[in-house]
């Protein structure tokens, strides 16, 4: 089994979160605003409320433009992929250069777009799924568990924000618990404590309430 430094573990965790944030939000945006019959669910003001951001957009198009491309919007797809890519640059040797390449392709494809067109964005989703697949093929199992830990924390976080079904929340918690079989609890704790120091949040408590919530 490969060795992982605390720094690397931290970056793997955030890589998983940002890749999943981009993928999850792409799906949610498509479901709610991706075709003529949409919005079937949330209006854009409600979407913003779920994410906890100001809904000061003039109309739906301005909202979508921001959610896709605004670099300063920490919930935009471009922001998520930029941050994921920046982490991946550090992690190329750990996640494998094939996995890195898929992330780069996703990032480059999105960055080359100027206007929101859900058909043009499809390859971004394809590359992100290819990234997850490549990770399964190439990476060490502890590495996979670290990235997946970030992935399921993000899924659980967004599921909570968008008030998804209990089934989805339970699935996320179940996946987080499964990771504990691969990673020792001490590793989770070390990373969580490192994140606490860097992020100024009480992540250690969050970790345990996430995993051991009754």
């Amino acid at each position, binding site marked *: 089994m490969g060795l992982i430094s605390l720094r690397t573990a931290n970056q793997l965790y955030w890589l998983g979160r940002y890749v999943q944030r981009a993928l999850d939000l792409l799906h949610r945006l498509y479901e709610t605003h991706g075709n003529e019959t949409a919005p079937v669910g949330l209006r854009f003001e409600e979407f913003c409320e779920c994410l906890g951001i100001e809904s000061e957009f003039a109309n739906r198009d301005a909202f979508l433009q921001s959610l896709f491309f605004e670099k300063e919007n920490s919930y935009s797809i471009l922001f998520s992929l930029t941050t994921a890519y920046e982490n991946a640059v550090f992690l*190329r040797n750990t996640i494998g250069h094939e996995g890195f390449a898929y992330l780069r392709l996703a990032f480059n494809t999105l960055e080359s777009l100027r206007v929101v067109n859900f058909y043009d964005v499809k390859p971004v989703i394809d590359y992100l799924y290819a990234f997850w697949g490549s990770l399964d093929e190439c990476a060490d199992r502890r590495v996979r568990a670290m990235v997946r830990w970030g992935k399921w924390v993000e899924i659980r976080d967004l599921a909570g924000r968008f008030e998804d079904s209990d089934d989805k929340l339970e699935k996320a918690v179940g996946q987080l618990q499964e990771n504990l079989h691969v990673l020792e609890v001490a590793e989770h704790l070390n990373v969580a404590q490192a994140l606490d120091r860097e992020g100024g949040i009480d992540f250690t408590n969050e970790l345990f309430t996430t995993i051991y919530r009754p």
Partner: protein
Amino acid sequence: MQKTQQRGHSRRGPGGYVVLEPDVGAGKNREFKLGYSDLDRLKAYLNRYAITFGLFQDNTFHDRLFPFGTVPRVIGPWEFDTLEKGLRQRVHALNLFLHDIYHERKVLRDKIVPEEFVFACPAYLPEVYGVRPPANVYAHLSGIDLVQASDGTWFILEDNLRVPSGASYPLIAREAYHTVCPGLISDMPVRESRDYPQMLGRVMDDVNPGGISVVLSPGRFNAAFFEHSYLAEKMGVPLVFGNDLEVDGEYVYFKDVGGHRERVGAVYRRLSDEYLDPMVFEPDSIIGVPNLMSVYRKGNVAIINAVGNGIADDKGIYYFVPALIKYYLGEEAILRNAPTYLPFFERDRNHVLQNLHRLVIKDVAEAGGYGVVFGSMLSADKRRLLADAIRAEPRRFIGQEVVEFRSLQVFDQHKVVRRRADLRAYVLHGKDISVWPSGLTRYAMDRGSMIVNSSQGGGFKDTWVLSL
């Protein structure tokens, strides 16, 4: 298919191709060629993996794609055989010189090299005097820069025994050729080069006194960070930054996130001596490992390349390398230096000052193509200022004859142009000394330019060594 009118020429147009030089197919009555469409595919392949070489411009870091000249340089088997012998000989002598300088110093007593050239050199480190690195190897990985004159003669331009970069670029390029045009490589046939990470790994194992091997990088904003990461992946060793390691007592350890730690026996460091250990060198360094040198002095960790190697690749010492080969090995140098003059010696100084208009002057303290001045390109006033500087600090400069080195084919904007190119050959020294059968060919971006350095915007090519 339309035949070319003359061997060695390229056909233009959408179905065009480049006939590889030298025209090794001539004797076999066939041409080895790369189609324009394959050249485009090769470039796209490397773009996919973000093969970058960072540049600092106006104090800002730009992580740019390293320009890839997709037409490979081809070296015939006999030619490489001579290069291989000459490079092994040179590195063998330089390794003995390093041991001597940091121990007995016979070379100084016998006046082969003037003392001033050693003790006045900032790269000489008294901190490692008397320190014997594991297996007594100093130059584990040397990057030797050569140029080939238009008459085919190879000249050594520079030795790099500190942190030579660049091998990963032809390495990943070779992966691209194997994917895009595998038939061409096997038909020619080209010697395998994709085992470079294993060669380097074996060197590290040879000198490792116990523990795991790691690649130590200064960080994301190093120009060659891609290389650090790629080599770590291919060698299957952790890529670490300074704060991932800690010294405890006699040993250095890698701190794993699980709370346990592993002893480290070999550090392939990609940072300069002065940043390695803030307790010994630059105290403000935050990218080094505190007390690493104390473990090194005890022989409990191998540092690759050894600390203090800079004295052997100093541009002033370069002048003496043929004499060092004779002194340590009793042999004539197989590969020639470019004709060089040392203003430190009065006779050479007079020659340099009288011929400033046609020589190239190099500042020995500079690297990466900086501090290189072509006398022919200076105004009369600037030439006078340079002459004054040489008179004031003769040890600081060397003068060299300008070698009109060979231009190679470069595929640019769907046409083939010619650009001057050098070759960085990689010599690995563990239990044995071997030369990697490839190398980094660097070419100048602009027509007529002789500055090929990656740090000044040059591009790179793969180097194909033929086996037959």
